[in-house]
C-alpha cells in the first residue's frame, strides 16, 4: 500500500511544454513527431537538450502499432538527448502520466535538476481491425480476449450498460459529452477533430459496441507532447516567469480481469489515485479551476466526474446536462477537446494533458475563447490506463 502522507524533498516546477498537432500524422515517423513537441518545450523553457539530465518516455505501441521497439532511444538520439538518463514507461493510456511522474520524482528526489517527460504515440501506420485487435488484447489476453474478442469500446460499453441500468444515464447524456468536447476541439487548432457535432449526429452514428456508438469513441490519433521539469533552484537561476508547480501526484491500479472489478459504474483506481493526489496537494475538488479527465469514451468522462469528486456518485450525467463542465460552469472539463475530440495518442495523452493545464494556468491558452477564468490557480489532470488498469492524477498550481 502507498503511504498517505507524501512529502517530496523539494518543490518541482514545469518550466516548458510542447505539443504536436494531433491527427493522422503520416507525414512524419515517430522520432520526427517527437521532435516537434520536444523542440517547442525547450524553446518554451529557454534551455538546450544538454541541460536535461533524465528523460522518461511514455509510449505503449512500440513494435506493435509502430515499427520501433525502443522509441525512447530512437527519439532521444533524434532530439539530441543521447547521454541523459533514459527509460520508457508503460502504463497503457496513462504512460505519459507515468513518464511525467518518473521525471517529477527524479527532480523531487534531488537526482536531477532538470528532467523531461516525453509522450509519444504513432497509431496510424496499421489498419483499423489490427488496431482493434492490439488494443483489445490490452487487458488480460488469456482470459478475456482469446475466447471473447473484447475491443476497447466494448470494455467501456460494459461500464456504460451498468451505469445506465443503475443511475438512468441515457445515450443522450453520453452524446452531450461528445458534443461538448467536439465544440472545444473546434476551438483548438492542434486537435484531431475540428468539427462541431450535434446530439442527433452522435445518436445516429454507427454502433461500435452497444450502447457505444462512433461518436462515443475517441479517434485513433498520432501525436506527441513534451514537458520539462526543474527544481526550485533552477527556476530561479533560469529566471522562469511563470513556473507551474506540481502540487500533487496520486496513482493506483485496478485488476487486469474485468470480471474482478468491484462494480461497473466507476473506476476504483480513479477514486484511489485522486484521493492520494488531493491529499498530497492539500486541495479539495471544489478548489479546482479547470480539469482534464480521461474521456477515451463518453461514459468515461461521466464516471470520472463522479470518481474524482466533482459530483456525487450517479450524478455525472446531471453535471453535463446542466452544462456545469463547460467554461463558465462549476468545473470546466476537457476544454481542449479531450481525448474524445482532441485525440488520444495513447502514450502522449498524459503529457498533452499537462501541456493544456500549464497553458491554462499561465493564462496563455493560445485561443482566448478557451481560456478558463482562474480563481485559485489549481488545475487537475486525470489519466486512466487501460480500462481502469492504471490511474494517474496530477494536480498543478501556479
Amino acid at each position: 500500500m502507498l503511504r498517505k502522507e507524501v512529502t517530496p524533498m523539494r518543490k518541482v516546477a514545469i518550466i516548458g511544454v510542447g505539443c504536436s498537432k494531433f491527427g493522422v500524422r503520416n507525414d512524419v515517423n515517430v522520432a520526427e513527431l517527437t521532435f516537434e513537441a520536444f523542440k517547442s518545450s525547450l524553446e518554451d523553457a529557454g534551455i538546450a537538450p544538454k541541460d536535461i539530465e533524465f528523460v522518461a518516455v511514455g509510449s505503449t505501441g512500440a513494435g506493435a502499432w509502430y515499427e520501433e521497439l525502443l522509441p525512447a532511444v530512437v527519439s532521444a538520439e533524434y532530439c539530441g538527448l543521447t547521454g541523459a538518463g533514459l527509460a520508457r514507461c508503460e502504463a497503457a493510456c496513462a504512460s505519459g502520466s507515468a513518464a511525467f511522474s518518473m521525471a517529477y520524482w527524479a527532480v523531487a528526489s534531488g537526482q536531477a535538476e532538470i528532467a523531461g517527460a516525453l509522450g509519444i504515440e504513432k497509431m496510424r501506420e496499421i489498419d483499423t481491425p489490427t488496431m482493434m485487435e492490439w488494443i483489445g488484447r490490452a487487458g488480460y489476453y488469456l482470459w478475456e480476449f482469446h475466447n471473447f474478442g473484447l475491443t476497447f469500446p466494448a470494455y467501456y460499453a460494459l461500464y456504460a450498460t451498468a451505469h445506465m441500468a443503475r443511475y438512468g444515464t441515457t445515450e443522450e447524456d453520453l452524446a452531450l459529452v461528445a458534443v461538448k468536447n467536439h465544440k472545444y476541439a473546434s476551438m483548438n487548432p492542434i486537435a484531431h477533430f475540428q468539427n462541431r457535432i450535434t446530439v442527433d449526429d452522435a445518436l445516429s452514428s454507427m454502433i461500435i459496441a452497444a450502447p457505444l456508438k462512433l461518436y462515443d469513441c475517441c479517434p485513433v490519433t498520432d501525436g506527441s507532447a513534451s514537458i520539462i521539469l526543474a527544481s526550485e533552484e533552477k527556476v530561479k537561476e533560469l529566471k522562469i516567469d511563470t513556473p507551474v508547480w506540481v502540487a500533487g501526484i496520486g496513482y493506483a491500479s485496478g485488476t487486469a480481469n474485468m470480471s474482478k472489478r468491484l462494480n461497473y459504474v466507476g473506476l476504483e483506481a480513479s477514486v484511489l489515485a485522486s484521493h492520494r493526489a488531493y491529499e498530497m496537494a492539500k486541495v479539495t475538488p471544489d478548489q479546482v479551476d479547470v480539469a482534464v479527465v480521461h474521456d477515451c469514451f463518453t461514459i468515461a468522462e461521466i464516471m470520472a466526474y463522479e470518481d474524482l469528486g466533482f459530483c456525487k456518485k450517479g450524478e455525472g450525467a446531471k453535471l453535463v446536462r446542466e452544462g456545469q463542465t463547460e467554461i463558465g460552469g462549476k468545473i470546466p472539463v476537457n476544454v481542449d477537446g479531450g481525448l474524445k475530440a482532441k485525440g488520444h495518442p495513447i502514450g502522449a495523452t498524459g503529457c498533452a494533458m499537462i501541456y493544456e493545464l500549464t497553458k491554462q494556468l499561465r493564462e496563455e491558452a493560445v485561443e482566448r475563447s478557451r481560456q478558463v477564468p482562474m480563481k485559485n490557480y489549481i488545475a487537475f489532470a486525470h489519466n486512466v490506463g487501460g480500462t481502469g488498469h492504471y490511474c494517474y492524477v496530477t494536480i498543478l498550481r501556479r
Partner: protein
Amino acid sequence: MILASMPSIKSREVKIVHDIPISKTLKFWEGLKEGKILATKCKKCGKLYFPPSADCANCLSSDMEWVQLSNEATIETFTHVVVRPTTFQQEKPYTVAIGMLPEGVRVLAWLTGFKLSEVKVGMKAKLMAKTTPNGRLTYEFTRPEGT
C-alpha cells in the same frame, strides 16, 4: 500539408503466434471438454479464484484445490460487439456479458441464445462449457432451460 496518402515504405512482415503455457491450469481446460467449469480454491485461506489461479494472491500459498462451479449466473452487465478485431472478423457480431455466480466469483463470457433486446442487467443465464466446431475450448452464458 498532410494528405490522406503520404510517401511511405512498408516494414518487413512478421507473423506472431505465442505458445501460452497452460500446465498449471490444465485441469480447467480438460474440464471444459467434460462440460465442467472449474475454479481453484486456496486450501490455506479459502479464497476462490475464477479464472483459475495456481497461486493465491491473497496469502501467497500455492496449495490449491479444484472446485466445480455452479452454472447459474446473474448478468451484471453486457455489450454487443459490432466492430470486431482482426482475428474475430469471421464471427458475426457477438454479445459479451459479465455474470455473478452464487459462489461469489464473476465470469466474463459470450452470451448466446437471446435476442439482444431481451438481454437485461439482473437477468439469469446459464454458464456452459463449450468446444467450438474448430476445437477451441471455451465457455458461454446461454438461456436457462425452460425459459
